[in-house]
């Protein structure tokens, strides 16, 4: 079985090369064949304007497809493409330049990358206000995609809890939280829902029940499923549904976006780096990764604006995000991350330093964005 997959994989790569050479300047829809170990993009060039990808998942894992601009700014993405399914992605590319496509089998990591070139006249606005408007729209797309996945994965998690499939639920816990943690500042803006969904036992106010992810975390890892676990799981899904619909209608200002990027790193520095967040499952590094992803997505959305006003800051941000990525990726294990308990004090300190080094330049983005 494994051998067959490898052979298929290499064939796919060859085919991808052949296609990209012959069709580099054609127009029309671009077929993408995603498998478990290849991402075959039928054509790797396009003209400015709308670009349509048709992504077909020929692999065995659920996959995603992304088009990235420089600095991993997401221009467009489709998620949750099940095996055998096809999905269409239309991206408005307003500027010529070097881009990257990525398939993410298993919906994780950096994915299988490929270069993508766009040529032609710039259709991009250089007007500051329009750029800011585009930044918030771009981030809104990100929030929407994460919110959708949050709902999907929370439902799977909740179903596993209700079916008393403890091992499945444990595996799904950090996955569903990933989508939550990526958009945490947006979710947190709904005051009373946040503690219900994500409240830690020590944070819950007097007279308030301990519910949500962390209550189920405690049941799964420590106390065993309780008589009311099912009820808690149902409530979690109800609350997540509500927050998802609210998150999608939130209108953010560019400064809020920049502050959101900072707050996500604050979360890392005070909650994840100390192992306080997931004290029963010790899956803190998943949340850590997701917070950094979310921060990076917000900064990426603002990138064209920052680039215009403070180029040096952009390079600093790129360098510091990269350094933090490297520090974090050292601790990958299988589909996810090591347990927080497996980290040495030196490793924790190295992560904390990388977060601090990034936190400083990120905290300057709001000022740059708000400057006239």
């Amino acid at each position, binding site marked *: 079985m494994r051998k067959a997959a490898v052979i298929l994989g290499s064939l796919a790569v060859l085919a991808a090369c052949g296609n990209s050479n012959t069709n580099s300047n054609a127009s029309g829809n671009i077929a993408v064949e995603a498998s478990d170990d290849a991402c075959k993009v039928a054509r790797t060039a396009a003209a400015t304007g709308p670009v349509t990808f048709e992504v077909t998942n020929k692999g065995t894992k659920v996959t995603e497809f992304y088009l990235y601009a420089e600095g991993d700014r997401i221009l467009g993405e489709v998620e949750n493409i099940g095996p055998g399914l096809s999905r269409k992605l239309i991206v408005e590319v307003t500027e010529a330049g070097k881009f990257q496509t990525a398939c993410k089998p298993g919906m994780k990591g950096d994915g299988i990358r490929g270069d993508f070139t766009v040529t032609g006249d710039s259709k991009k606005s250089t007007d500051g206000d329009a750029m800011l408007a585009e930044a918030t729209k771009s981030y809104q797309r990100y929030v929407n995609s994460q919110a959708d996945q949050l709902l999907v994965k929370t439902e799977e998690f909740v179903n596993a809890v209700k079916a008393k499939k403890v091992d499945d639920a444990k595996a799904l816990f950090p996955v569903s939280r990933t989508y939550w943690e990526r958009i945490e500042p947006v979710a947190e803006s709904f005051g009373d829902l946040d503690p219900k969904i994500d409240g830690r036992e*020590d*944070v*819950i*106010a*007097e007279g308030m029940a301990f519910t949500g992810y962390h209550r189920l975390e405690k049941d799964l890892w420590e106390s065993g499923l309780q008589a009311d676990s099912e009820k808690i799981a149902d409530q979690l899904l109800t609350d997540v549904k509500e927050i998802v619909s609210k998150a999608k209608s939130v209108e953010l200002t560019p400064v809020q976006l920049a*502050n959101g990027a*900072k707050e996500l790193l*604050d979360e890392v*520095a*005070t909650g994840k*780096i*100390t192992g*306080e967040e997931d004290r029963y499952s010790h899956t803190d590094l998943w949340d850590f990764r997701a917070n950094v992803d979310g921060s990076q997505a917000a900064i990426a959305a603002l990138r064209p604006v920052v680039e215009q006003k403070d180029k040096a800051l952009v390079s600093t941000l790129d360098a510091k995000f990269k350094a933090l990525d490297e520090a974090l990726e050292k601790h990958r294990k299988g589909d996810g991350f090591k347990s927080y308990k497996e980290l040495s*004090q030196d490793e*924790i*300190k190295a992560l*904390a*330093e990388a977060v*601090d080094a990034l*936190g*400083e330049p*990120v*905290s300057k983005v*709001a*000022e740059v964005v708000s400057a006239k």
Partner: protein
Amino acid sequence: MTGVSRRRLLGYAGAGVALAGAGATAGVLASRESPEVENVAAAKVPFRGEIQAGITTPAQDHMHFVALDVKTTSRDELVDLLKQWTVAAERMTAGQEAAENGAVGGNAEAPPKDTGEALDLPASALTITIGFGPSLFDDRFGLKDKRPEALIDLPRFPQDDLDPARSNGDICIQACANDPQVAVHAVRNLVRIGFGRVAVRWSQLGFGRTSSTTRDQATPRNMFGFKDGTRNIKAEDTDLLRDHVWVTEGPEWIRGGTYLVARRIRMHIEIWDRTSLTEQEQIIGRTKGEGAPLGQQKEFDEPDLHVRGAGGVPLIGEVAHIRLASPESLNGVRILRRGYNFTDGSDGLGHLDAGLFFLGFSRDSRTHFVPMQQALSTKDEMMEYVEHTGSAHFAIPPGVKEGGFWGEGLFR
């Protein structure tokens, strides 16, 4: 030297003469004078008086606070210790060694009775204040019946992250002085006298007072860079002290005293420092420079919690610190705050282990500290930047009279 003569020296002749009994009525309490001195760096603060020094005394610049557990099970040994402590404490607040000929004048073959590091230093306005924690009132010393109802085990507050090694204790000693070496010397020598009978549970050094306790003192700044304690009760506010600080109920021994809540509040200052000025000011509810309540001009302008800005949004936000902590939001209750900034080095992750050591005195923590902390720990936006890592509650008996000793009323 006696307490009275020191008072005379400092121009407070007679203040200690009209001593009210421990069961003084509220009226007497209101009229009495506080044993204040001018906040001269080197001044001597009277040790004896109707109330203990170190509460309404103008806040000194440095603090060493220690919580101790009693190790002896003998009531007599404990009483002896309190008597020995009283002698040493009184001497030290007068700028003397802990014992006569303590540092160098004694038997050369014996270790000196005073540790010596405060030789040549003036009294530095040293005050030493004692208190008794809830755990002292168990079966060991027959004090069960003497435990005031108000001396509760503090409830757990949301977001508390208390370290047992920084919390509670049978006895506390608060030493404040304008020279840190003098404060540390006082605690060190008292602890030394107590070895074998008491053991240190935890201790905290504080630098930089975060509250002014008299109208003459400028309002200092905390580690967030904001003026702290603008609306604090001041020594001159005798009516407020009567209504909110001095105990009039409970067992005889505590009447005329007060209750102290100590909280070690770690601040995530690196995170705070990355927060915009606007957000910092909104979290506090005051401007950073002048310290004026939002919507007002000057530091001492009364906050107006009803002023609204653009879009009908309150200028002092619903979750701003000064709104939640204001008497207006807490049924009028006030606490006399006397906290200190601290920095205990760093935390091993490259962050300063810094914050505010909160010291708050009130007549009943159940009606004063607890509701305030409930409100803050559930709503205060500042909670994202702080973490309560230590907590303790003590009953602070009234002052020591001539010939008396610390906590005498408790063992009567």
